[in-house]
């Protein structure tokens, strides 16, 4: 590359780089810095200290949650972190389970009006995230669509109370909000598969199912992994959905961070919890990619 084209490349990159620096890097740096401060009453003490982190790891009597012991003096963040990861994982599995067949249908069965199908997929995004979450409140609520429907059919007398304000409601809502995001990457990776590869697999003796297992599934992995991360990472930290449909039982770690920042007036602690969560997610994602041999796969499929 000549000096001139290097300069062109840098100048092309610079707008994106500036935006990223201003909106992504700066807040993260601020968060890291803040996590080393402490809150004393209404004032923030700006001397460097690891107190917040020490408090998160401080051993104590702890609590038992679903048979798991959390031996910490301040166990709430740890419990909520594990719970958030579990709920996001469930939501992600649901999303991939629904989105994968949809993407497959789009890539292999739809021959005409593909663009129209893809536009139809994005229709849920035409309304705001908040409205979509609210709509689930209407569907699952005490006087909501499901309860009134079942009552009208005479199947139940009293409205069911277990539909809303629990972890299941959070998972359903999260899954619904993120499905369209995951269809597209999976669809792209399936669409890219050369149809002659499938013919060759049949020709070499594969039944339809064997061919799916040996060719289609492995070749769709880059898109499927991208979709998994795309859903898992943002849902772990979500607090809007748990706040609106989660009730007391459906709280996630994002709700705690929000509480610490806005209501309990302990922003440094909130920052420390955010940082720990970020590191845990990064470690989990790294572990996940390593476990499935992503590097080797990317080298081969390109």
């Amino acid at each position, binding site marked *: 590359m000549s000096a001139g084209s290097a300069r062109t490349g840098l100048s092309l990159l610079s707008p994106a780089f500036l935006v990223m620096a201003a909106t992504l890097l700066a807040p993260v740096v601020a968060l890291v810095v803040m996590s080393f401060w402490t809150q004393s009453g209404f004032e923030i003490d700006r001397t460097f200290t690891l107190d917040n982190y020490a408090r998160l790891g401080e051993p104590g009597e702890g609590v038992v949650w679903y048979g798991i012991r959390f031996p910490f003096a301040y166990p709430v963040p740890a419990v909520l972190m594990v719970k958030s990861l579990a709920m996001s994982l469930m939501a992600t599995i649901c999303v991939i389970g629904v989105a994968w067949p949809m993407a497959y249908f789009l890539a292999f069965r739809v021959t005409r009006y593909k663009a129209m199908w893809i536009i139809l997929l994005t229709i849920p995004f035409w309304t705001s995230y908040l409205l979509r979450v609210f709509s689930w409140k209407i569907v699952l609520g005490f006087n909501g669509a499901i309860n009134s429907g079942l009552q009208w059919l005479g199947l139940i007398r009293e409205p069911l109370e277990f539909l809303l304000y629990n972890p299941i409601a959070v998972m359903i809502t999260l899954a619904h909000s993120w499905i369209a995001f995951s269809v597209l990457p999976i669809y792209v990776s399936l669409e890219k598969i050369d149809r002659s590869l499938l013919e060759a697999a049949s*020709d070499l003796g594969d039944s339809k199912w064997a061919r799916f297992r040996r060719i289609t599934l492995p070749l769709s992995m880059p898109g499927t992994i991208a979709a998994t991360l795309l859903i898992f990472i943002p849902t772990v930290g979500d607090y809007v959905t748990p706040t609106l449909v989660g009730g007391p039982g459906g709280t996630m770690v994002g709700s705690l961070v929000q509480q610490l920042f806005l209501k309990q007036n302990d922003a440094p602690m909130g920052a420390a919890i955010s940082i720990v969560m970020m590191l845990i997610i990064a470690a989990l994602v790294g572990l996940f990619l390593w476990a499935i041999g992503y590097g080797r796969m990317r080298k*081969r499929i390109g």
Partner: protein
Amino acid sequence: MDDPIIRLQGIAKQFGTFVALRDISFDIGRGEFFSLLGASGCGKTTLLRILAGIEQPSKGDLTIDGKSMAGVPANRRPTNMVFQSYAIFPHLTVRENIGYGLVYQNLSKAEAAARTEEAIELVKLTGLSDRSAHQLSGGQRQRVALARALVCRPKVLLLDEPLSALDKKLREEMQQELRSLQRTVGITFVFVTHDQEEALTLSDRIAVMSGGKVLQIDTPQGLYERPNCLEVAGFVGTMNLFPATVSGADGSCAVANGTSIGELRGRLNDRPVTAGDAIYMAVRPEKIAIDAAPHKAGPNCAAGRIASVSYLGDRSHYLVDVAGLEEPVAVYRTNLARQGLPETAGTEVTLSWDETSAMVLPR
């Protein structure tokens, strides 16, 4: 043909309203190198895909090795295919690609590994077994595709223009290798190509196809020397055509007149003609003698003027304008015999040929 490996009876294929194949019937013998030759869109690839079981015929019966293939899917046919794009599985190594079909052969792990190594050696890919598809050149991919199909020991190997993506030199090398490979393994090869030279070089027999029909099936020599119609004559090699009217026939030879260059004589090729039939007298370019001597009286002789000379190294191509003919006459001479021949455009020359070198084609 007794006990053919492949028997096609009345095979037809329609895609919607488009007729891709109509009423195809012929046999392919065991161990034959059989080519399907035709321009793109003639239906040759569709026919190959029907043999493989990837497409189903709309009509007709296909028998492979004595068994009807009706309702037998691709994965249960004794055929394997080399795809035009090679269709190398990108997520597998060379070895995994080649061994792909062996899981269905009831082999032990050791046997399967041995068969794979044997195939890798056969196509000269030793040392590349652990590479993945995108680290291979075009020629190497082609070998992987070939080995992957051959390792399953099919009764018939189907090849869909496997050499068309290679450059000329590599293609000629691969042609030689393919031919010797076919002799080594003794499997029937059905080879689809649009390259007539390739078909002539490789095949035991060739079926020339056009518009979903088979025009002629013959040996390379048969197709070249005795084409049964104008289309075959034009597709396989170059042919000079002299429009004429039959004035009579004696034995295997036709006499024709009504041309601007006098009497023409040529072989009938078992095609009966009667006086008054409008025909073409057809002569291959390399069978015409060209010299500077003045025009002699007699049949199969024409006076002309050189329009252009192309020097091709081993031979030269002349185009000669002959009075009364729309197209110039093509004449090929090897450069061994070129000494003393006219070199420049505009020179008056005489063309002449034997009556056994000319043949009658219906007009």
